[in-house]
């Protein structure tokens, strides 16, 4: 079973957040990990309660992997959500390459 976490966007400001031990965090490292399908569903159920409390919108599970001692999302889309755009928008600086 792969490791999964729950992500969503915060209602008030839209920022990418992850469900952590003490609420929602912008830091993926603080996310609660699910190592089984049952644990993942339990996390998602918890997240749905946050939706009902109008804290976040659109929660879903994403796969994470360990890379250099850090947790990072497995898929590129989620890595960009976690780390921000790979280009320095608005400032005309050169892009930062990500794998």
């Amino acid at each position, binding site marked *: 079973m792969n490791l999964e976490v729950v992500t969503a966007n915060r*209602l008030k*400001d*839209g920022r990418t957040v992850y469900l952590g031990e003490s609420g929602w965090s912008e830091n993926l490292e603080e996310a609660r990990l699910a190592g089984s399908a049952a644990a993942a569903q339990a996390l998602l159920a918890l997240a749905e309660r946050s939706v009902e409390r109008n804290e976040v*919108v659109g929660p879903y599970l994403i796969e994470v992997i360990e890379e250099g001692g850090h947790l990072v999302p497995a898929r590129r889309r989620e890595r960009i959500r976690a780390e921000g*755009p790979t280009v320095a928008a*608005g*400032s*005309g600086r050169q*892009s930062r390459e990500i794998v």
Partner: protein
Amino acid sequence: MYRYDQFDQRLVDERVAQFRDQVRRRIAGELSDEEFKPLRLMNGVYLQLHSYMLRVAIPYGVLSALQLRKLAHLARTYDRGYGHFTTRQNIQFHWVRLEETPDILAELAEVEMHAIQTSGNSLRNTTADQYAGVAADEIADPRVYAEIIRQWATLHPEFSFLPRKFKIAVTGGARDRAAVKTHDIGLFIRRNAAGELGFEVVVGGGQGRTPFLAKTLRKFLPEADLLSYIEAILRVYNEFGRRDNIYKARIKILVHELGIEKFAELVEAEWAATRAGALRLPEAELARIRAHFASPPYEEIAPPGASLEAERRADPAFARWLRHNTAAHVKPGYAIANISLKATGAVPGDISAGQMEALADLAERLSFGEIRVTHEQNLTLPYVKASELYTLWQALGTLGLATPNIGLASDIIACPGLDFCSLANARSIPIAQRIAERLKDVERQEAIGELRIKISGCINACGHHHVGHIGLLGVDKQGEEFYQMTLGGHAEEDASLGTIIGPAFSSADVVDAVERVVETYLGLRAPGERFIDAYRRVGAQPFKDKLYAAH
């Protein structure tokens, strides 16, 4: 330019108040996300990968210096200090907070701007030639008709729940600079044999998953019938357009499936019943709108002749900028100056708050306080004295806005792509930056000549890849970014859709592939032959041979 009357202002102010209450109710939990989503979309608020995004309408791409200064203020106060111009002549702020969007909209209303109908299945911002009113080849000013359409379309109750979004573009020149044939309805201003003004109406164009160029529905529509005829088209679409399948819901699919003749029959039948009705444009109203777009108080001046020639000779960099970034003006002694937002390493269409403010100042000093946004994600100063071009160019240079590449290989259209957009499959911006970096040598670009490279990060084609001379479409192949190349697309009056050239290229290989296409073209072109003309002459095969020779 057009100024709001009491009705416009009241409507926009009321909408801000309504949306403020809707946002309050959403945050308080009185509205569910399901209930709120269509309301926020009606006000241009999207939820993207990292944040909410606000898309602000810039009607037919016309901005005053005052408005641009306000956009700078909003970028700095509510966003991260920049804005992003889109292929529909709008501006997007990518980092706004939902709770602050009512304040942003209230500030926009102070300068006669809003975000109404920049999203959702509605009549979107009507776009137009950025050279409107100043092009030497213009029959009549498209802004007049775009504004009439704007007034009619704004909050139109019958057309607020169309099967899908609906985009109209108008051009008044012999050359199409507004990609008119890629729109749901396109209007080419024409004169008939009697010299009367009217339109050639084209319908059913669009890009996306199933691209079509618009087909001529009516060779000549009299000016006074503009709205009744558009209404008839929309009624036919509203009745017969598909609502069961989002991929088949645009009018282009309806026109394609019915055939243009059958579609025209339906429109004519609808129109016959309404043509003489309330939508017939009264001459007095036409004159009232036209007066808003009267020429600015030009000075009667002679073309600068010798002095400009001396500046050109003295400074080759200025000469290059003149060659590529300026265009002939209808008024003697004046020029159209284009400002490239495609500096090497920049994000296509991005502009910082500081650049916006400096440009607003320059527009006030040198262009009667007016700025235009182009669908190619650049800006235009429409009324610059030719004798002041050198001053303008020097000032733009200090702002990083004097890149002499309009229409050249590094003037790339790119959508925000996977760096921002929740619909994207692959990134667009870094590819645009890498291609621009590879081809950054201005002399080489000049030798290549006109070359339109357009990049989309998904099949929705916001980056116009179908009509790029070289089009790139980002796709996801088992987690890797790949780019499918099309060649031979073109967005102007002789528009064409590109042809897929072969298997997609990896992100690592795609810049080499673009360069190989360029080198192949340089090797086979006749003297002075543009890329698109060479491609049309020789076809895809020579390019395929070079691109896939090793495979």
